[in-house]
């Protein structure tokens, strides 16, 4: 099935990922800008949930630079979004490694709780709970939960992104949900 994306302003069909990639490979950086605008939001959200808000812009920039440099190696048969999430996952694990080294030399990073002015307190409280709950999970479990339950990525695609068997994805998802449910219940949330 071919999905046609329409321009919200002109209602004209936007170029597909494949067409944009071809244009990028011909050196047209304007096509890359379209790709960036199409995908920066889910990449940003995923990186935020995996790594937190600290240095998020740098992580997003790193992902898209790696995408640009890696485009010639991108297989035309593959799904661009899967490949993009794979790169985001690599950047997140690299950051995690760096944080691990830095943390061993300094004090732990406090959990950030960034207030967004217009949101009600209960919403902020629950967002903070979810954020803290995600941080209690291992990065592997968190990645599966974030990609599947929050970003709506299919399990088969997650298996490709994380390069693990499909059964491992299912198992991690089960354990991540159980751990998350337990954390929320301990915090007084009735599900």
């Amino acid at each position, binding site marked *: 099935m071919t999905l046609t994306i329409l321009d919200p302003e002109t209602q004209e069909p936007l170029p597909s990922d494949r067409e944009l990639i071809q244009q*990028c*490979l*011909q*050196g047209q*950086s304007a096509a*890359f*800008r379209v790709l*960036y*605008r199409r995908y*920066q939001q889910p990449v*940003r*959200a995923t*990186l*935020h*949930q995996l790594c937190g*808000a600290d240095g*998020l*812009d740098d992580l*997003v*920039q790193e992902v*898209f*630079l790696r995408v*640009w*440099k890696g*485009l*010639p190696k991108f297989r035309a048969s593959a799904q661009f979004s899967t490949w993009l999430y794979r790169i985001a996952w690599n950047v997140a694990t690299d950051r995690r490694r760096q944080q691990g080294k830095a943390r061993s030399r300094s004090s732990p990073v406090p959990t950030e709780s*960034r207030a*967004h002015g217009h949101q009600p307190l209960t*919403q902020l409280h*629950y*967002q*903070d*709970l*979810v*954020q803290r709950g*995600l941080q209690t999970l291992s990065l592997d479990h968190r990645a599966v*939960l974030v990609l599947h*339950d*929050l970003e709506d990525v299919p399990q088969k695609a997650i298996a490709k992104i994380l390069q693990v068997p499909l059964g491992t994805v299912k198992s991690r998802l089960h354990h991540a*949900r159980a751990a*998350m*449910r337990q954390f*929320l219940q301990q915090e007084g*949330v009735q*599900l």
Partner: protein
Amino acid sequence: MTRPPEDDRLVEFLRSHQPVPPPARPALEHQIMAAVERAEKPPVLQEPHRAWHRRAFIPAIAASCLVAWGGWVGWRDFRQPAELAAADFLAETWVDSVYGEEAYWLSFDPAEPDWLFSVYANPY
């Protein structure tokens, strides 16, 4: 695939209250595009760095074959006179032993293809 109801409620809760990432700094897109412009263009039409292996492979094989063939020719030419001398000696010894002095008039040039025929063609 259907989820258990408790998973449905959990996922619904997580989606409703998922952490919102802080807004990107205003210049982020510009910085990324500037970095992309500075970065090397995707080298789709360029040979990868390891391509010299492939480029050098066929000439290397050809050169090896040439060297092997040249070596064989040289070795053969070097070896041939000694072998021919040994063949002459064997032939003369054999003809002498069979024909004695009667064979003096026979040709013993082994380079001629029919030199043995002359021996068989002559009656005792």
